[in-house]
């Protein structure tokens, strides 16, 4: 139903704020045109009337220049001229009766406008408007000179016509311009509204179209889109984590259930009962550990950067950690190569940084065979510092490296070993909080974890 759509769109246009503005604009235009017309009309009229009066006064002076006795004759002559002059003359005697002339009724002295019906003129019954000037003479007679106002009236009519059309055109143009502008604005706003309703309906990938004109709508679209980008990644993260939690917790819970069920059916002695209970307990603990790790990551992610940060002596912290792990390395027959530049300080949370480094070391210990060398190297580079922890194990394939930082991601090779797949997620979260660039690379062979600490801003 295209008509229905058009009507609908039209109605929406009429209701739009932009259209209201266009109407107001058109009215304003009309008002300006009217004012302009009135001012020019009055000015033009005034000018022409003044000209007219000037010529009448001149003619009057000419007639009055004749001696009183010859005035009637002079008027007679002027009226008898062919073609007839533009002036009307009349002379009334002291008794107010017409002596000679074509102005039939004696006007008041001074300037006045009279109307005179002359059925014969131009073949139709037209009332002439005449501007007249009359002055009473010393002998009591009155001399009147006048001139037809037709030219002024014609100009008047012309002006009125011109300004009416021009005014109408201005209003129509203003309205049309307003409609076009309103339509343009309406389309842009509706594109945004449409994207918003698509998102509300569940299509999180919907974005506002950017026209590339770089105007305020484009800027609005860009900031809306970046907001949508963030929301989408958060929502998808949430969805992913919910799925992962459900998936990862189902396994230990299922095991626990099976063990308890089996114990109820098959266990015959106190010893076998307590054995089943111990294993169920271990399953429950692993679920709880996973929850605790998730909550810890969530807490780190929710924290504002710099909140509770202080100066941390990174070199000293790392030295202590290395000393703590050296016996573990030795017991497992690993070469532990350590090179720590002293005096490196950063701005951060010592507890979280410790936790992060423990997780990186634990990750290396956990995923490589005993006897595999591990190295730790801290360097001051430029204004920042760089920590590289490498193992000579199997490493992580390049395409998996960004994935393993996500929650619950465990590579197939690691499936058989215990672990929640949350260790490196916490590392990523703490690094992100501190503005540390975390890069997983190839130690050829093995995993290279590179942490680039930002330039320390003195607190």
């Amino acid at each position, binding site marked *: 139903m295209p008509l229905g759509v058009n009507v609908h769109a039209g109605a929406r246009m009429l209701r739009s704020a932009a259209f209201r503005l266009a109407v107001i604009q058109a009215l304003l235009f009309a008002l300006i045109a009217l004012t302009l017309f009135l001012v020019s009309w009055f000015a033009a009229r005034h000018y022409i009337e003044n000209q007219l009066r000037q010529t009448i006064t001149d003619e009057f002076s000419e007639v009055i220049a004749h001696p009183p006795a010859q005035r009637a004759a002079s008027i007679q002559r002027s009226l008898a001229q062919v073609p007839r002059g533009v002036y009307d003359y009349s002379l009334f005697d002291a008794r107010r009766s017409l002596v000679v002339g074509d102005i039939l009724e004696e006007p008041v002295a001074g300037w006045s406008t009279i109307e005179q019906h002359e059925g014969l003129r131009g073949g139709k019954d037209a009332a002439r408007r005449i501007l007249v000037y009359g002055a009473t003479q010393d002998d009591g007679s009155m001399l009147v000179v006048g001139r037809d106002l037709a030219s002024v009236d014609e100009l008047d009519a012309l002006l009125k016509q011109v300004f009416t059309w021009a005014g109408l055109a201005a209003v129509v143009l203003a309205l049309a311009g307003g409609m076009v502008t309103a339509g343009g604005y309406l389309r842009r706003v509706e594109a945004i509204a449409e994207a918003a309703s698509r998102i509300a309906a569940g299509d999180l990938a919907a974005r506002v179209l950017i026209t590339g004109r770089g105007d305020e709508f484009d800027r609005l679209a860009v900031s809306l889109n970046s907001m949508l980008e963030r929301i989408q990644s958060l929502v998808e993260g949430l969805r992913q984590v919910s799925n992962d939690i459900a998936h990862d917790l189902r396994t230990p819970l299922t095991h626990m259930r099976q063990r308890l069920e089996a114990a109820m059916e098959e266990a015959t002695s106190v010893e076998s009962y307590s054995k089943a209970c111990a294993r169920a307990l271990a399953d429950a603990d692993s679920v709880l550990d996973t929850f*605790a790790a998730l909550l*810890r990551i969530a807490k780190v992610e929710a924290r504002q950067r710099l909140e509770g940060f202080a100066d941390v002596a990174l070199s000293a912290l790392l030295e202590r950690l290395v*000393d703590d792990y050296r016996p*573990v390395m030795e017991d497992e027959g690993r070469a532990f190569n350590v090179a720590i530049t002293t005096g490196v300080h950063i701005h951060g949370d010592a507890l979280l940084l*410790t936790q992060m480094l423990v997780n990186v070391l*634990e990750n290396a*210990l956990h995923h490589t065979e005993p006897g595999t060398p591990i190295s730790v190297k801290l360097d001051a580079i430029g204004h920042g510092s760089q920590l590289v922890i490498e193992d000579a194990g199997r490493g992580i394939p390049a395409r998996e490296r960004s994935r393993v930082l996500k929650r619950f991601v465990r590579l197939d090779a690691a499936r058989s070993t215990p672990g929640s797949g949350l260790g490196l997620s916490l590392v990523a979260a703490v690094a992100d909080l501190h503005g540390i660039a975390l890069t997983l690379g190839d130690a050829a062979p093995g995993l290279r974890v590179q942490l680039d600490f930002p330039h320390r801003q003195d607190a």
Partner: protein
Amino acid sequence: MRILLVEDDIDTRTYVSSGLRAKGHAVDESGDGHDGLLRASEHDYDVIVLDRMLPALDGMSVLKKLRSCGTQARVLMLTALGDVDARIDGMEAGADDYLGKPFALSELIARLNAISRRSAHANTMTTLRVGELELDLIAQRVSRAGKPIHLQPREWDLLKYFALHAGEVVTRSMLLEHVWGFQSSPHTNLVDTHVCRLRSKIERDFFGPRIIRTVRGEGYTLSMKQGH
């Protein structure tokens, strides 16, 4: 020990109180913060087990009020799963230890023993003696039967913690928290490795019984008495 248990969850409260009673302690129970505060100020308890989330008055406020009235009872705070920051807040407010839920009863009992026997003079002591072992807390030196033993800094911290809690069960998570300052337990046997090293230094070259004994399923205990 006379213990006040302030916990609003009935299941947890019953489980903990019956466990503590089974170990021979006298336990009073309270279900909310106001009542807990009232009981704590009316009676002298050795230890108060205080849940952080309580109806009427939260655990942290109860603790602050108790400390402001000068109550000397030891306080162990219980907090929700994964609430790491609570530990720091709780310690600042005057708690003697902190335990995250869920916990094993043996862990709670070990920690209650540890804080209840903690000497009031621990901060002013200069030497600690456990049997033949002598710890010079100022110079950070240790000797057994007069023979000096060289320890790494972390081994010293570990031995000092054991010595301060001599004769008590010390769990792995207590060691991780109080000696290492870690908030979550690593997968590796960091604690066992260090305990093993410490043992070799203080036991290997000497005649006599083991000083640090493993308590199966719970942790370790430092003792000079002839044991099983």
